């Protein structure tokens, strides 16, 4: 057990497995039936300054071994979050990472300043990769200079853990490098992949926006490749996320270079997945007499 933890920035993840933003609510919805010791941190739904209503229904559609979502960052906003959720975290004693989303640099900064005051918040996941909103989100990725400024200014506001969540539909090699240079503690790779499904009878999108984000096992081999590419290119840790459905998948991510992993879509499919993955990793490390540290990035090119 002692082996199954990893420190990234100021957070110790034990186990190095956590929910993906947007697939675990604010972390309290599942308290009745969830054993929090199976995850290393809570990662919240993307939070904005003001509450967001999100997109219209339908917001989700299933695809082969995957799903497309266009939730549109429905969230309760900063104030309600502070009032309603932080008290729960106080009791929980788990690192809490807020996934924050702004339409402008200023919004990001205001969010960071506000959350920074709370010791219940251990860190930030900076969401510049949501494909389902009109402003902000993955649009940021088109202007690397803006990302550099954003990071630089947030880094001045907070000493807490910062991970930047990237989009597979961006120049993630360049952006991850910039984030490293500007003092990010980690990169979260990756958000959903832009995708579409068409209703052939009305010739419209099957969801309420043209594009949504694809997640789930379908994308795993692509994400694994991206995690490998990014982690070879930078020296800060990478948190791998995309399609993980088993402990074997998680091990693949560690070998590819991820220091921790997140699980989203497959939590919907199997609510025991965190326990299964944790136990599986533990068993694997023991059986193969290898430490998590030595496993990370141990991929053999030939």
């Amino acid at each position, binding site marked *: 057990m002692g082996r199954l933890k990893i420190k990234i920035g100021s957070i110790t993840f034990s186990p190095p497995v956590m929910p993906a933003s*947007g*697939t*675990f*609510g604010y972390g309290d*919805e*599942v308290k*009745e*039936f969830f054993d929090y010791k199976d995850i290393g941190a809570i990662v919240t*739904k993307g939070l904005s300054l003001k*509450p967001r*209503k*999100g997109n*219209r*229904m*339908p*917001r*989700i*559609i*299933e695809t*082969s*071994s*995957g*799903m497309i*979502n266009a*939730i549109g960052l*429905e969230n309760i906003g900063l104030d309600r979050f502070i009032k309603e959720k932080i008290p729960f975290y106080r009791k929980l004693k788990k690192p809490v990472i807020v996934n924050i989303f702004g339409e402008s640099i200023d919004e990001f900064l205001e969010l960071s300043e506000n959350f920074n005051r709370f010791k219940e918040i251990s860190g930030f996941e900076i969401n510049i990769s949501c494909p389902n909103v009109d402003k902000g989100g993955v649009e940021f990725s088109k202007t690397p200079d803006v990302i550099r400024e954003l990071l630089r200014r947030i880094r001045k506001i907070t000493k807490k853990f910062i991970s930047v969540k990237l989009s597979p539909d961006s120049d993630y090699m360049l952006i991850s490098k910039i984030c490293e240079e500007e003092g990010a503690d980690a990169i979260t790779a990756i958000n959903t992949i832009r995708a579409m499904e068409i209703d052939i009878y009305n010739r419209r999108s099957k969801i309420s926006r043209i594009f949504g984000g694809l997640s*789930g*096992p*379908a994308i795993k081999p692509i994400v694994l490749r991206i995690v490998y590419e990014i982690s070879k290119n930078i020296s800060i840790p990478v948190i791998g996320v995309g399609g993980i*459905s088993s402990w074997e998948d998680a091990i693949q991510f560690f070998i590819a270079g991820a220091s921790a992993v997140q699980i989203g*879509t497959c*939590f*919907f*499919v*199997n*609510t*025991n997945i965190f326990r299964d993955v944790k136990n599986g990793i533990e068993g694997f490390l023991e059986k193969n007499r290898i430490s998590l540290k030595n496993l990370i990035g141990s991929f053999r090119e030939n």
Partner: protein
Amino acid sequence: MKVKKERTGKVLENIKLKEKIFLLKLETEEEISAKPGEFVMIKTSPSASADPLLKRPFAVFDLEKRVLSVLYKITGRGTALMSTLKKGDAVQFSGPFGNSFPLPRDRAIFVAGGSGIASLNFLGKKLYRKKEINLYYGVKSGDEAVPLSFLSFKPSQFLLTTEDGSEGKKGVITDFIKFEKGTYYLAGPTNMIREFSKKFKVDAFASMEERMACGIGVCMGCGILIKEKGYRRVCVDGPVFKISEIQWED
């Protein structure tokens, strides 16, 4: 406290009631309990298969100790796969989830559209012989109508409509409701419920359908617009809502 966890049911029977309507009886590992209106999330592919990926929501049609029944109609890939389940097959599911129908003070009037009959059946079972139950039941065609003999209650009054006129009255069910006093319970397609709410000035409890990814309130996939409140989640804030609260979108 609801125990929410992954469960495995063993198929006892998977009875074909009509061309596309099946009644699936699962033996659960342990005794579970549910209230009328609650639903389960069923994985239609084997646990080891990721396609179809997501679990599907189905109302509890009946629950007797370790025997859980759901009634389903083949409407797509997942339900088509379910229809091939055989005795002894293992089925992954979770739940029951969601809120439930409040009990009526007086007479209960059920308005069921299509497989909406499922959740009302379980309510009917609880009320049967205690309250008068009138059942309005609308389906597309006679070969989608569940025979009364398969229901767990006997309605005092019963009206069946089919859109093609192949059985019962021809038309949609909301055109045949004769208003009377009582508590109205609706389950079926959103259009039926909306039609009802436009037509009758009475409030009613309706079990709503929306696509679901998680079924446990964490994905925000299953929103329903509630007046003055914005989106609420069908899976945990529902599936039962007062129709007077619903803000119809167009």
